């Protein structure tokens, strides 16, 4: 019983830190990562399909490095190493450095999602379009991409959910997300288990609700196909 009353006490006293600051920053960071990631990821997917070998090589290297190293390590580099190389970054609050790293990380994954989404469209569709005399560009824009989007959007939703969980790593730098709230409240109350429970429930609620929304949306999209 003491456990529950402790939780109630924490929520009464520090609820805003979890619900407003924590969730707010977590969602904001995730949204920035996914939106920025989608933008740069699309460009990278384009670069990966380009005829210029060097461009393809660079992008492939970025994707492989980002996917092959831990997110935490990338955050350390973004927060501590980049300011050494680029001095103006020195005065940047950690949350900005973290957002940049999250965008780069997300771009790599999103570019793969987009690439495989495009490649999953039956090559016969492109052949048919080209055989009618349409240009590569027109065929891509009016035939391939609309079909690829149906493959891409659900996977992009999953990426959003993954990113929500991964943003917890920025708490290493006290950047202000939900996990940072946990660290702060735990620090003043010494009630580790209670704080962990609150944080866990909140993360689960976030991702669960989001995945339900995505499912419903996916279903409505399929119905219109």
């Amino acid at each position, binding site marked *: 019983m003491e456990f529950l009353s402790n939780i109630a006490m924490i929520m009464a006293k520090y609820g805003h830190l979890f619900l407003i600051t924590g969730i707010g920053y977590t969602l904001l960071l995730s949204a920035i990562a996914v939106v920025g990631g989608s933008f740069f990821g699309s460009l990278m997917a384009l670069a990966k399909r380009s005829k210029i070998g060097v461009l393809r090589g660079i992008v492939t290297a970025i994707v492989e490095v980002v996917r092959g190293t831990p997110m935490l390590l990338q955050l350390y580099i973004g927060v501590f190493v980049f300011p050494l190389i680029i001095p103006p970054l020195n005065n940047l609050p950690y949350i900005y450095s973290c957002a940049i790293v999250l965008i780069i990380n997300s771009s790599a994954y999103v570019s793969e999602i987009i690439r495989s989404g495009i490649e999953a469209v*039956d090559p016969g569709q492109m*052949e048919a*379009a080209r*055989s*009618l005399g349409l240009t590569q560009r027109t065929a891509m824009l009016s035939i391939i991409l609309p079909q690829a989007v149906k493959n891409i959007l659900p996977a992009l939703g999953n990426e959003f959910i993954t990113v929500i969980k991964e943003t917890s790593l920025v708490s290493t730098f006290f950047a202000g997300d939900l996990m940072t709230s946990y660290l702060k409240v735990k620090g003043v109350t010494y009630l580790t288990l209670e704080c962990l429970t609150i944080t866990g429930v909140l993360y689960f609620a976030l991702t669960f609700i989001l995945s339900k929304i995505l499912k419903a949306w996916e279903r409505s999209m399929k119905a219109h*196909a």
Partner: protein
Amino acid sequence: MLDIKNIYKNFGDNHVLKGVSTTIEKGEVLTIIGVSGSGKSTLLRCMNLLEEPTFGEVWMEGKLMTPVDPYLHFDVIRASNTYKALAAQGMGDEEAIHKIKVEDLLKEKHHGRAEGSEFSALMKKIYDENHIDINLGRQKMGMVFQNFNLFNNKTVKENITLAPVKIGVQRLKDAKKRGEAVMKTKADLQAEADKKAMVLLERIGLQEKADVYPSTLSGGQRQRVAIIRALAMEPDVMLFDEPTSALDPEMVGEVLDLIKDLVKSGMTSVIVTHEMGFAKEVSDRVIFMHDGVIAEEGTPDEVFNHPQNPRCREFLSKVLY
């Protein structure tokens, strides 16, 4: 009308076509038969450059669609450094050309530099004088695929009108750029294309399917829509790549009947097919492909009733028709 000159096609080490030449005349119906893997589909796909030939040229109505193949132009070979070197050694003209062709001695095949400026200038001249934009060439060739390849994200009517409208709009833009007076709008083009699509759909009795998506159609219906989609571009030649191979048996008839209709109306056609009875009935000329070359060629009577090539005889004895 459609000239295929000495086409080679390699997929890596796999040599699928090994020098195929033929000419399709206006109004002619050519069928290509042969076992699986003999290169007949690849040959058809080389005709509208869905596969780019490794060597050889494709000419559509007197216009070059592929890069220039120097081996097909003696004057180009004579302009090459390789030829000049051989001539300097005292080799005769015919012998030198033969040696270069057989031993594939020209270093830069399509964009000559290693063969000297005279060679590259001549290559460029031939190309500039004869080539046609590949998309323009393809607009004159309708293609029908084994797997229909209807656009899944478009309705039946949109499938038929998409290309004519997009290409029409592009032409209007180009005309405007050249400063010509443009009377039509995109809406006019769409209206025209819609009207034509409905006429074509009526021809195959599917007008009530105009606004449904292809996934709701049967295989036979899809293939018939694919055929009229190609016809909507008003092509000069139709290429059929095993149009009935992916169909349930009971649907083969309706598709073959439509092709027969088309052929009877005088449409120049090239048909790759396994339907021997059909080939015999509609063709003006039949080609039997074997191992990447034309092994037998002639009228349906010659090929089906009096085949000379032993491979062709064996093939025909194995297939029922």
